[in-house]
């Protein structure tokens, strides 16, 4: 009994919460294509290449280290993958050919599921966007930006006005998107796809 106690009571220093060593595999499995995530040698090429690294709380490399360590919460609540701009610099430079950008997408969806993110701006933007796509089959980014600004950066709206009007007067922005003809088909496909994704 006592031994068991001893064995189960952890040294204070070590982080013990939700350490699961399957995490890395899990992420790899949820990534499109063959991620090669397990091949990361922590060289930092990704973090060095990233144009938006300045805005990241953790560099991609650091996130991968957390995944390897099985620290789910720490990894998923970082803003790294939300700030990722999908420029693929890291992907083409990675000496281990890790599909970094696609891992980022996988992490986004995992963070949303786990409801782990500090700032809802980015996830919201994605949701507004796909909401629109699921309703119309098309997107109209400027209208989208407008909506998004109203929600998150109301203060900045005045600054937006000249641009918005400019866009409107030039017919570069509309308030309703076109709707595709066969919306029923698209919805059916997306619904089936969602079921299939859920099966994982």
């Amino acid at each position, binding site marked *: 009994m006592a031994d068991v106690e001893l064995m189960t009571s952890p040294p204070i220093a070590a982080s013990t919460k939700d350490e699961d060593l399957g995490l890395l595999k899990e992420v790899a499995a949820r990534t499109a294509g063959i991620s090669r995530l397990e091949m990361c040698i922590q060289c930092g090429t990704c973090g060095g290449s990233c144009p938006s690294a300045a805005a990241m709380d953790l*560099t991609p490399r650091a996130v991968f280290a957390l995944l390897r360590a099985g620290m789910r919460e720490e990894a998923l609540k970082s803003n790294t993958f939300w700030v990722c701009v999908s420029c693929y610099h890291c992907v083409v430079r990675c*000496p281990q050919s890790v599909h970094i950008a696609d891992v980022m997408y996988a992490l986004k969806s995992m963070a949303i599921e786990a409801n782990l993110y500090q700032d809802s701006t980015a996830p919201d933007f994605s949701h507004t966007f796909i909401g629109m796509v699921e309703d119309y089959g098309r997107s109209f980014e400027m209208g989208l930006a407008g909506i998004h600004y109203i929600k998150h950066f109301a203060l900045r709206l005045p600054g937006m006005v000249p641009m918005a009007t400019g866009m409107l007067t030039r017919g570069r922005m509309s308030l309703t998107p076109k709707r595709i003809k066969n919306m029923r088909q698209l919805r059916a496909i997306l619904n089936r796809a969602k079921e299939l994704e859920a099966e994982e």
Partner: protein
Amino acid sequence: MTRNQEERIGVYVCHCGTNIAGVVDVAQVAEWAAAKLQHRGVVIAREYKFMCSSLGQELIEKDIKELDLNRVVVAACSPHLHEKTFRTACANAGLNPFMCEMVSIREQVSWVHTDKSAATSKAMAMVSGGVERVRHHVPLEPLTVPIHPATLVVGGGIAGIQSALEIADAGHQVYVVEREPSIGGHMAQFDKTFPTLDCSACILTPKMVSVGTHPNVKLLTWSQVEKVEGYVGNFSVTIRKKARKIKEDLCTGCGICQEKCPKKVIDDVYEAGLGYRKAVYTPFPQAVPKFPVMDVANCTYYEKGTCKACEKFCPTDAIDFDQQDEILNVQVGNIILATGYDLFDARRISNYGYGRLPNVFSSLEFERLSNAAGPTNGQVVLRDGKTIPKSVGIVHCVGSRDRNYNNYCSVICCMQSIKFAHLVHERTGATVYNFYIDIRAAFKDYDEFYQRILEEGTQFIRGKVAEISDVPRVASEEGKLIIQVEDTLAGKQRRIPVDMVILSSGLQPRADSKATAKVFGISCSANGWYIEKHPKLDPVATMTEGIFIAGCAQGPKDIPASVAQGAAAAARVLGKIEQKEVALEPVRASVIEDQCSGCRICNGLCPFNAISFLEDRMVTEINPALCQGCGTCVAACPAGAIVGTGFSNEQVMAQIEGLMLMNIEPAEVIA
């Protein structure tokens, strides 16, 4: 093939520790063989921890004597590892060594299969195959051929120089073939060598000179091997000696021709593109031999038909514009390949800006820059030729450990970069940053050297450099090269402005290494490095008897390792020369004359010209010394009149029957 008395076969199954026993039930295999193959002549079947150990061998020898075995099957590792061992064991016990057959149940079974029962039954089948095969073995006497005492060394870098001198000093003839105008190789381009920082030229030049002057060395620079024929002990090599356009017998190497030559050319080889040479030139002052060569592609005379300045001024009329290439043929017994490496071309990594950003230098460029005999007399300056850098970034692993370029580690770059850091610090006092993924400072005194450079205040930043750019984001970056990198230990992206960047480019196989390998009939790894006979136990021999490799041709390595390998290869060659003759595997083809109808199907099939047709008797004959034992003619003879020892039809067919367990009642076959 006739077989002597009735077969008494011993079967020996090796555990190889757990290497085999971990997957294959060796005990079951042995029992099975003893029981099921008894009617095929198996009188004893044993299993043992390590058959290759002296105890294991004694076990076999004892059985041969006591049980009067006349055939032995050893189920263990690949014959390429231990066939010799067990043949010797048989010989010790008075049995002809060729009455032994090896079955590879490690490389072909336990190491590659996971399903234990499947692996075990495969092992049984393979043993059965071995037993059936060995029944058809016949005593053979190895063929011995004399070894020609001369040796060919290809490549005049430090590895080649070392092996040439070792052999020459032992009193044997050596031919050294070098395709550049002088020997010396890459080492001649360096200024200092790590970790001792002694002057490269100072330690290399004496060796070069003794190669040039050694009575036993025939030095052929500006030359290339075109053809290699024959086999161990008896190679016949065709060498093209390119026209120097200089009469070597008259030339004194005074160098006046170079002075007078009006044509300046960028020297891409010796000066790594950082300096100039003339159209007639010796690459560097200490060149061996001292004779210059004429660069026909760039010489004004060959372009325009006039000039001949060199000829006018040559005091000994040594210039010969009409000189032609010479084709030489030499006989040698052994060959050492020390063809070296190429530097990775950093222009391939466009985000490092080499070739686009003037002050990004390659490692070889920096070697020249820092070399007292180099274009700047050892002054470390920017591309403008005068400005001394105040901050320098040194990038490790350029083109190495990177699946986009070369996936292997180039071994020398870490120490080289640390050496650069020291030289820069010493010559300029600049702030030095080294960017690394891991510091690999194995081997004697290397880590100490690293420690010393740390003391000098070099900033080591752990992170693979992402990009080098000249586009400033802030004022402090104006006019600088910015090295963008993640400092993985700080976990932050950093942009470090510097005046100069040195790319520690990796090593890669010679562009033509595969072609060269073909000429000499050895094999290359997928990357293009030459493959050694055994990665641990036979690092300088190749699969091809009589051909050895040394230096970077075999894989990236530093100077001490290259020298050691050069010497090792020489020792192997000397060993062969001392044997005076070499025993060839008695795997040979021969013709049964009264079955040969002289149809001449086989006559055109032998690339070694071992097959000849005797018009008078209208039969074909095979010269055993020339025959390499490939067996193509054996397979081709329509009359079955050609037999091949060691791999006879009977042996192979019997082995197939055995593998398919045709020798056992189907009922008894273990699924």
